[in-house]
């Protein structure tokens, strides 16, 4: 056993391949958070008064709120006054075409493998790229516009589609929802906005790529997706950050509105810098993601969480309309000293609503992985159904897996089924694979990927490949 164990630990001890930082000339606000900071952000962005009012309301709420009590997390206190709440590349380009994107930024995204340039583009994916706090480019805008789809940075949306933003901003995640959502509402810098008109099937995958580049900055972006009746959209989100010794804060909010019979599929591959094996550095990833599904609508969250020092996110669905559907597919890996506390909330309000939850947690090294979920069947949720499957895989002796599901049922016709298991990679499984000629590393990667199969199957093709690669890279030392 001991030999295998050492190998596993070696495998888990991966190096972070996106740890470079790019030397961009950046406009950074002085650290600290007061009402003036909020006003400064609004002024920098030339925002309308209603939005400033909304931000100030959120800021006031945030000041009254208590930081969450970290049940399972070991976390150094965050000094909210030492963070800079605004950073933007200085040569903020006014883009007429992609060729005008700052070559340094383009180079950075090239390094990340993010195809900003159209020639290098993966087929049929439109990308909104966000560096630090600001959206630097959105591709394929015209093709999308022909279909009536609006896909742009949040700032542009505020400028060009203020009524749509004003109607839906905060409609799913109210400013007072939680400590980090309130903080985000006060200081969010940019993000993505997406609007799919009635009956439109978005002609391509939409994608946002987040990158934290500057030191000592927090990233507070905001994503709002509105899918009108009978529309359909698939949205991808990717994230990386440079390797730095101090912790950086990422507190995003994502709101999804799926109107009658609309379908939103939201996929995330999160690979923020996780910190080193001693727990130095890494991103604190505190994200609020929630969707509201109206009648016959469907919202599906898929996430592969391999990065961040601390992840604290619960993509959720409010199943408001009758027969609406919510899904959550998650792979969360914690190695080194990573702590992942993630899961979902499915709140069933409408009749005949169904939700399914498939969560795969992998713990390696000194990683701690927690599934925390809530399934709530309100009194009105006639014949609602939930199925939850929650599996943990432990690789090594110093890691931990925690499963904390809450199931609250107030309707007798509702049916809830929760199953969970915890296991380890068996000696016999490894032996069997090796007898068939596989290296131990390959065997391990194969078994772990197999463990995650149900979730990877939910990802769009390009992302599934990326996710498998990431998982292998996070587990393997030299390979990958």
């Amino acid at each position: 056993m001991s030999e295998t164990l050492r190998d596993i630990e070696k495998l888990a001890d991966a190096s972070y391949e996106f740890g470079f930082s790019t030397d961009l000339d950046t406009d950074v606000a002085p650290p600290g958070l007061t009402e003036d900071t909020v006003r400064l952000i609004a002024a920098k962005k030339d925002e309308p008064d209603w939005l400033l009012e909304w931000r100030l309301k959120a800021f006031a709420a945030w000041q009254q709120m208590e930081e969450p009590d970290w049940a399972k997390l070991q976390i150094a206190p965050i000094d909210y006054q030492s963070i800079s709440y605004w950073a933007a590349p200085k040569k903020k380009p006014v883009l007429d075409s992609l060729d005008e994107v700052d070559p340094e930024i383009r180079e950075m995204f090239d390094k990340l493998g993010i195809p900003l340039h159209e020639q290098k583009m993966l087929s049929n994916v439109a990308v909104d790229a966000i560096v630090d706090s600001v959206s630097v480019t959105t591709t394929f805008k015209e093709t999308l516009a022909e279909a009536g789809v609006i896909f742009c940075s949040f700032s542009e949306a505020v400028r060009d589609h203020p009524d749509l933003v004003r109607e839906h901003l905060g409609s799913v995640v109210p400013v007072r929802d939680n400590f980090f959502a309130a903080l985000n509402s006060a200081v969010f810098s940019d993000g993505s906005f997406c609007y799919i008109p009635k009956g439109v099937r978005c002609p391509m995958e939409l994608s946002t790529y987040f990158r934290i580049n500057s030191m000592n900055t927090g990233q507070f972006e905001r994503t709002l997706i509105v899918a009108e009746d009978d529309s359909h959209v698939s949205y991808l989100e990717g994230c990386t950050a440079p390797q730095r010794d101090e912790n950086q804060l990422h507190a995003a909010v994502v709101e999804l509105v799926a109107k009658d019979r609309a379908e939103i599929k939201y996929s995330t591959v999160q690979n923020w810098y996780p910190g080193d094996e001693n727990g130095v550095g890494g991103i604190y990833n505190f994200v609020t993601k929630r969707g509201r599904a109206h009648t016959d609508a469907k919202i599906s969250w898929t996430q592969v969480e391999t990065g961040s020092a601390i992840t604290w996110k619960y993509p959720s669905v409010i199943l408001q309309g009758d027969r609406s559907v919510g899904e959550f597919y998650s792979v969360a890996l914690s190695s080194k000293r990573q702590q992942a506390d993630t899961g979902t909330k499915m709140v069933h309000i409408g009749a005949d609503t169904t939700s399914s939850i498939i969560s795969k947690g992998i713990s390696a090294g000194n990683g701690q992985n927690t599934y925390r979920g809530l399934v709530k069947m309100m009194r009105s949720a006639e014949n609602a159904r939930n199925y939850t499957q929650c599996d943990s895989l432990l690789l090594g002796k110093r890691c931990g897996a925690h499963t904390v599901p809450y199931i609250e049922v107030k309707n007798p016709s509702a049916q809830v089924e929760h199953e969970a298991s915890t296991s380890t990679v068996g000696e016999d499984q490894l032996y069997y694979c090796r007898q068939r000629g596989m290296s131990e590393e390959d065997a391990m990667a194969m078994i772990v990927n197999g463990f995650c199969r149900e979730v990877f199957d939910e990802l769009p093709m390009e992302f599934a490949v990326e996710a498998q690669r990431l998982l292998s890279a996070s587990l393997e030392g030299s390979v990958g």
Partner: protein
Amino acid sequence: MTVAAPTWQADALEQLASLALPTKRDEAWRYSPHAKLSQLTFGPAAALDEVPSDVEAQIPVLDGPRLVLVNGVVDPGRTNLGALADGVVFCALSEAPPPAAARLQQTHESPDDAFSVINRAYGTEGALVQVSGQVDVLLHIVDVSVPGATHNASASRVVIDLAEGASATVVETRIGSGTGFGGSNVRTEITLGAEATLEHIILQDLPASQLHIGRVDVDQAASSTLRARLFNLGADYGRVAYHVHLVGEGARAELSGLYFGFGDQTLDQQITVVHEAKDCTSRQSYRGVLDDSSTGIWNGCVDVRPGADGTDSEQSNDNLLLSKTAEVNTMPRLEILADEVSCQHGATVGQLDDTALYYLRSRGIRKDEASRLLINGFADQVMDDLEHHGVRGWVTARLGHGHE
């Protein structure tokens, strides 16, 4: 025989002054009726002039000696300890023989929630069971709560020690009298020596006007076996929390229970099994049936500590909701800090199976009778391996069915 009050008891009395009751922010009390709990008043145990006449009829008739406590004081009229085998101590705490009296100075861990503090402060009397060797009869401890004028709630303490290789069965019946508001707070401390086997059964059936707060702490040495069974049936709020520590290698804990709620009852079970040693086995298997406007709470946790390799654990909680206004909150939790573990857990909530109902009806059984048959079938599975006919008979009679 008097022994100085233990220091932890004095500490607890001191803590009473600044006692903060649990709130919904405390995980273990998240769904509890906090307003009602705050109405309970405790004080030093005091004997009643006269025990109400309806008490005797409520006590299950079991084969063996019994010790009856009323409001935390021994009721000599109803207590019948008879002649006990060698190697068996079964008596009131206040009557403990000298070696045991020193033992009572010790307590299991001292949890700092308010009701545990209250129990340490006022639960001065109770029952002591010490066994070396085998006991074939049931040892029956009856705790009766009769809300009084000075305070409406009582506290008592049960200590059960099984020596190496010993085996025994202890039944704790918790009942009450009257229609006034009040309740009882009972703490049970169990220590099992190596290879000891204890069957421990709680029958909770307080009146609907009262609250019950029970806590059971268990330390298990190597290869010992605990079978703990809970029938949580009575009280307005009936709560029993188990904290089982598997300290020795190869220890085994099987916990099971049934809660069956009617009216506005809230029935709460909090189960924690801590695997601290290698190759231990634990089973948690609980079933709930919730009718009318009742609420079921089940919070079960398997906590596998570092080094507890070879842990084998299973956990299940199945619930039937029979009414539009009933509800259930269930939390099947796992905390795993060791590898080489096998942990399965699951929870279900549903209503009666339509297909099973149709099958029964196609055999000529009326719909209401078919429903009752299915509900009883669901509930009775908790008693599948219960050998004690006296207990089984009491439960089936209490639930209004008896088809054995």
